[in-house]
């Protein structure tokens, strides 16, 4: 089993203050920017590898660095220390509707979004039908209306449908494993299972124990920016729950 994701001594540093943004006015009148320069390491000394076809679940409390780690694997954040290397293409279920343009029709948006993630026009033509099929009859009926007229449920359904149709070997999921109503969520789970059976590598961030147990075999536990545990999903969840119980005492 060859490693498709390798993370080596990774670290990333953030400013503690939310108001880091500088302003010219401040710099001119105060001679310096007034933002706080206090920093903290959101993640540090993280090392692990993920092999092809593995299903990894990432657990940890809020602010533990889960999303940050996922974004660095997706390549949309750059580490300050260490390195991430990902040898295959990635389908990121991170900001599902981020690339959609409200003014354009759903049809144009499908081509746009799939194109942005590297699909060629012919491939999209080929998969267009299945993307729309998966998103459901409501979306099909509204294919030529502007995307901003879609209900938020329809928007995420279309987003999910496009990204999971990408057919990339690695799937990154940030808490959006299933979207929409009850029926659609079950459809999402089914699609995810079929993707896993087809040998995709999954990297999942979730707070739902059910999802984690259902989809992941290996667990990583992030605590205060450090990798606290790397083991089977069941063991990791047990440890996480024990820590949580301790914390709530």
């Amino acid at each position, binding site marked *: 089993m060859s490693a498709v994701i390798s993370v080596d001594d990774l670290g*990333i540093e*953030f*400013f503690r203050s939310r108001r*880091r*943004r*500088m*302003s*010219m*006015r401040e*710099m001119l009148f105060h001679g310096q920017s007034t933002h706080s320069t206090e920093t903290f390491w959101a993640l540090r000394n993280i090392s692990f590898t993920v092999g092809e076809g593995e299903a990894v679940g990432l657990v940890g409390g809020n602010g533990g660095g889960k999303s940050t780690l996922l*974004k660095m694997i*997706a*390549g*949309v*954040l*750059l580490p*300050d220390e260490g390195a991430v290397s990902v040898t295959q293409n*990635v389908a*990121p279920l*991170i*900001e599902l509707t*981020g*690339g959609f*343009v409200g*003014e*354009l029709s759903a049809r*144009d948006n499908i*081509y*746009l979004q799939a*194109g*942005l*993630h*590297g699909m*060629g026009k012919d491939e999209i033509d080929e998969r267009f039908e299945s993307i729309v099929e998966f998103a459901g009859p409501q979306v099909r009926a509204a294919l030529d209306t502007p995307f901003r007229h879609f209900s938020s449920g329809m928007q995420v359904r279309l987003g999910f449908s496009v990204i999971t149709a990408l057919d990339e070997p690695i799937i990154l999921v940030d808490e959006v494993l299933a979207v929409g109503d009850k029926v659609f969520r079950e459809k999402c789970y089914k699609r995810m299972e079929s993707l896993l059976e087809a040998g995709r590598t999954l990297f999942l961030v979730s707070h739902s124990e059910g999802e984690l147990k259902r989809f992941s075999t290996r667990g990583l536990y992030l605590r205060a920016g450090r990798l606290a545990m790397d083991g089977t999903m069941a063991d990791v969840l047990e440890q996480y729950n024990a820590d949580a119980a301790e914390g709530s005492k």
Partner: protein
Amino acid sequence: MTLIGRTRAVIQKRQVLWTLVVRDLRVRYSRSILGYVWTVLDPLLMSSIYFVVFVFIFKSGKVGQQPYFLFLIIGLLAWQWFAGSLTDTSRALLSDAKLVRSTNLPREIWVVRVVIAKGVEYVLSLPVLAAFTLFYAIKGQVHFNLGLLLFPLGLVMEFVLLIGVGLLLAPITALVTDMSRVIKIALRMLFYLTPVLYAGNRIPPPFDVVVWLNPMTGVLEMLRAGFFEQPVVRGPIIFSAVITVALLFIGAFTFSRLERAVLKEI
């Protein structure tokens, strides 16, 4: 050498780049009834206004070269590309923050695609320029010469210049909140400091050489080279070629240095 590597990375993603450019143009033109007309209406109206002000009110049609209206329209179309592109590239990483945060593309693409989209708009406005050139040519007032060959080179230079400046300003604007206001004011001042309304040789020395430091001076000199009686001035062209290349390197360097901080911020 990172510049070559980054360029190669952007070229590899040319399909995505093209998708983005088409999106920009489609959004722009699908939203308005007049669509294409807006692109040419602005420079046309402004040319007419300046023409009236300078020729009929100030009675000084000699500030530029003859025919003055043609001189104006070449300058204003190129300036519109410059100003529009600079305004949008400086905000490029902010206005598409969601996309930047969710797709792993070479980040330079967000700047390059604005320059290309604005460039396509510029090219689409060229028929208007051609029409006026034809009109004045029939009247026998245009002095075509070999300088016409400099026109495409001028476009390439403006393109490279815009990418350099865009790469420099985009990350700075993402980190410094009021930068876009500064850019707006700076652009308005720069408009009068650039020989758009007047010819560069009308500036009394030694200030004419100071204006050469503005790379748009050389670009306009190249674009206008083939149409008028006065000979081309080489100085500003050489100056702007050097400054344009320098800005490209500075821009690429700044962009790669600030990329990390910008990604955390947006």
